[in-house]
């Protein structure tokens, strides 16, 4: 059995501190309310049901991204700083689905289907590139990701999209920066079997808004994806992939093609990135184009690292805990911090926590035990 100290060292003090800080954030709202500081400060009081609704929603919104990192970590490619490639293929799928005027579930799943060939194509090319530069994957992934985001930015302007809901009205060409999916597939997952609760507000248009809404469909989708990933990691291929990441020499000696496994992992990661952005958009309500995908990989990476993953080991538990904590931080920090110390420090806290945890992971002696 491992001692407590061993567990602490494995987990790492910085992570524990962040963990405790987040737990504290979750516990804060009631006290913030009791002390009434927020009233003094003139900040709207924190609604706990709304906050929790928000946390669940954002958890579902982002979990698929975080899940997308798992295969590449497991196969030894490191943190996928190039997740933007998956996101871009997802955006292509989403915009094409809208171009073909697909609505509702057909729109969402149509987008997924349309995104798949791009994900396989981009992921394949990206994977082959990463196989050529073993040992430098993360640095190169980051710049390939950035470069492709800007390349696609040019493409968004030039590609011959014509659907009036997407292109700039007066020019008649070039996609808008943000495209609403309001009339297409907004909340298609969120609202599936959603459980409402709390106060109900009625908008002038007669639309009911609940203070608390449990996004059942979204979470089910996440659970399904996570389960499939869990299952995949238990297949022959998944086992081989983990072995490649754990010790490529062992895997090669066992007759496994290391390059092929890595390629498969990159393609899966890219595909999940595409699925992730679709889930994100249906919940968020907008397709964000151009430079929006730049930062998304960083949030996902920070989340999985907070969940306890390292540069070369990650599990479903890391994904779920990490996403929950990190999204919890993003949701709770603004309201809690603003109300307690009357300052909008939360943005700074977010940067320091997320980038700090990535640095921590990078500077740890991460080589597999030898």
């Amino acid at each position: 059995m491992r001692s407590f100290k061993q567990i602490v060292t494995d987990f790492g003090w910085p992570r524990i501190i962040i963990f405790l800080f987040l737990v504290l954030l979750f516990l804060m709202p009631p006290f913030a309310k009791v002390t009434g500081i927020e009233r003094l400060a003139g900040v709207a009081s924190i609604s706990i049901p709304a906050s929790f609704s928000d946390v669940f929603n954002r958890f579902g919104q982002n979990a698929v991204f975080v899940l997308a990192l798992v295969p590449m970590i497991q196969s030894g490619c490191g943190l996928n700083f190039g997740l933007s490639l998956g996101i871009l293929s997802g955006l292509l799928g989403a915009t094409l689905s809208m171009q073909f005027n697909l609505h509702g579930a057909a729109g969402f799943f149509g987008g997924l289907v349309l995104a798949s060939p791009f994900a396989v194509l981009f992921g394949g090319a990206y994977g082959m590139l990463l196989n050529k530069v073993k040992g430098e994957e993360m640095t190169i992934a980051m710049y390939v990701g950035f470069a492709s985001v800007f390349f696609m930015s040019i493409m968004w302007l030039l590609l011959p999209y014509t659907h009036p809901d997407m292109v700039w009205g007066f020019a008649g060409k070039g996609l808008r920066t943000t495209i609403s999916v309001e009339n297409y597939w907004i909340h298609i997952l969120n609202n599936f079997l959603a459980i409402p609760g709390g106060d109900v507000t009625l908008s002038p248009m007669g639309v009911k808004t609940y203070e608390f809404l449990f996004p059942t469909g979204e979470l089910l989708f996440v659970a399904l994806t996570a389960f499939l990933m869990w299952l995949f990691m238990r297949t022959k291929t998944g086992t081989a992939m983990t072995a490649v990441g754990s010790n490529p020499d062992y895997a090669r000696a066992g007759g496994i093609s290391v390059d092929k496994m890595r390629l498969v992992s990159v393609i899966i990661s890219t595909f999940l990135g595409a699925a992730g952005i679709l889930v994100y958009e249906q919940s968020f309500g907008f397709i964000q184009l151009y430079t929006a995908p730049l930062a998304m990989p960083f949030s996902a990476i920070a989340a999985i690292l907070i969940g306890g993953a390292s540069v070369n080991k990650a599990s479903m538990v890391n994904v779920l805990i990490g996403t929950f904590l990190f999204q919890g931080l993003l949701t709770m920090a603004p309201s809690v911090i603003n109300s307690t110390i009357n300052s909008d420090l939360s943005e700074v806290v977010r940067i320091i926590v997320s980038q700090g945890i990535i640095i921590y992971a990078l500077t740890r002696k991460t080589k597999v035990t030898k």
Partner: protein
Amino acid sequence: MGQETPLLSLQNISKDFYGTVVLQDVSFDVKPGEIIGLVGENGAGKTTLMRILFGMPVIRETGGFKGKICIDGQEVSFTSPFDALDAGIGMSHQEFSLIPGFTTTENIVLNRESMKNSPLNDVFGDRMSILDRMDMRKRAEGSIVKLGVKLDPDMLVSEMPVGHKQFTEIAREINREKTRLLVLDEPTAVLTETEAEVLIRALRQLAAQGISIIFISHRLHEIIEVADRVVVLRDGVIVKDTPTEGVTVRDIASWMVGRHVATERVDEAHRYFEEIILSVKHLWVDQPGETVRDVSFQVHKGEIFGIGGLAGQGKLGIPNGIMGLFPGGGEVLLHGKPAPLNDPRTALQMGMAFVSEDRRGVGLLLDETLEWNIAFTAMQIQNKYLKNFGIFKIRDESAMKKLTEEYMDILHIKCTGPKQQAKELSGGNQQKICLAKAFAIRPDVLFVSEPTRGIDIGAKKLVLDALHKYNRDFGMTIVMVSSELEELRAICDRIAIVDEGRIAGTLPPTAELAEFGLLMAGERSAKSEEALSA
């Protein structure tokens, strides 16, 4: 020479690593200007002795050593290699410690550059001094002349032939003004015959100038040629310390190999085999440090074939090449069918398996469970331990557990259970896991490489017994590669000795020890060929 104070005197040096004795009561003196030839098999304790001499931190971390080191009659205690350098002991390692992008001059005076003060010295310290390249070159040339070899002081090391690198390395050591004792670890291993001759001349010249040299080599004729005295280490004990005059290569070879802890042959009966199962022709393998140049041999079905030789000669490259782990070429026939090289998967599928010498690097998934470690290859190659769900196959955890428990039982693996991580086991038990992994795919031919390296005696016996048992009970053909001649002699039916990437000869296990020693030392003997044909 009379009662001259020895330059270096090692007195009763003993050292153990966690109870395993590697050096015992080692004492010898080095007089000024004397060349000592230090020989011994791998693991005889040469490296440890030199580490002690140089005050390497690893010695202190593992509990220090017993005994005294005296220089000029004064006891010294080095805490780091730099202390040893300060005391005038220089060392040239087997792996070059040179910067490829630097010139000869820059390497010779590395970190001892001549400098001129610059105005910024007073502000930021001495490292702001300007290099005096003229003087650096002059000093480098001085060392080169002292060594008596031809070296271009302005040539980049990366563009040098390997022999020049070796000279540069030695020139650097003698460039220190104080250097009085040079330790050369296998300096001729990478040299051509002519280069080696030049080096030996250079060493004589240095000795004539009063520099003492400890010359470590397995080329015994060189020892006889250059050394004044030969010191033979075997199993951590000095078995011979004698002037080289009148000593023959054969003498040294037999002292060196000797008889270790008696690992008695289990059955002395000679076995005869008919069918050839594995045939290797003109194999070359590019494994760094273990290059195989041209190896041909044949293995009979049901035989245990031993491959021995000193480290770095290429014996390890043979199984690694056949199993496709390192790039190689040549022809390998299994059951008369060609087995492709550079393709581990096909090699495994054809019925060969390999237990690597690099247990932690190649043999194990240290961060995974024992179940994974044992079942992985069988799962990937033979689709065992999988549950079929139509389009996809899921690991059958319960079958893996059963398998693991079975081998835990057969091989007496000490562990907390099948779910324990491989890194938590001791070396011997890890080795058993590697064996279990190979046994699990039931190969026709099993390659085992250094099966007993780094494990204790009890575990050694278990491992050898297991190999023996699988050979006798299941008729598994085994090719065993080992540095330990005794264990090869204990269980093999034939033993090939590899030297410089080629098979120097094949001997029956009952052959005389000196024969093996000679083969290892690169002294080809016609007798071995006879033994082979016999």
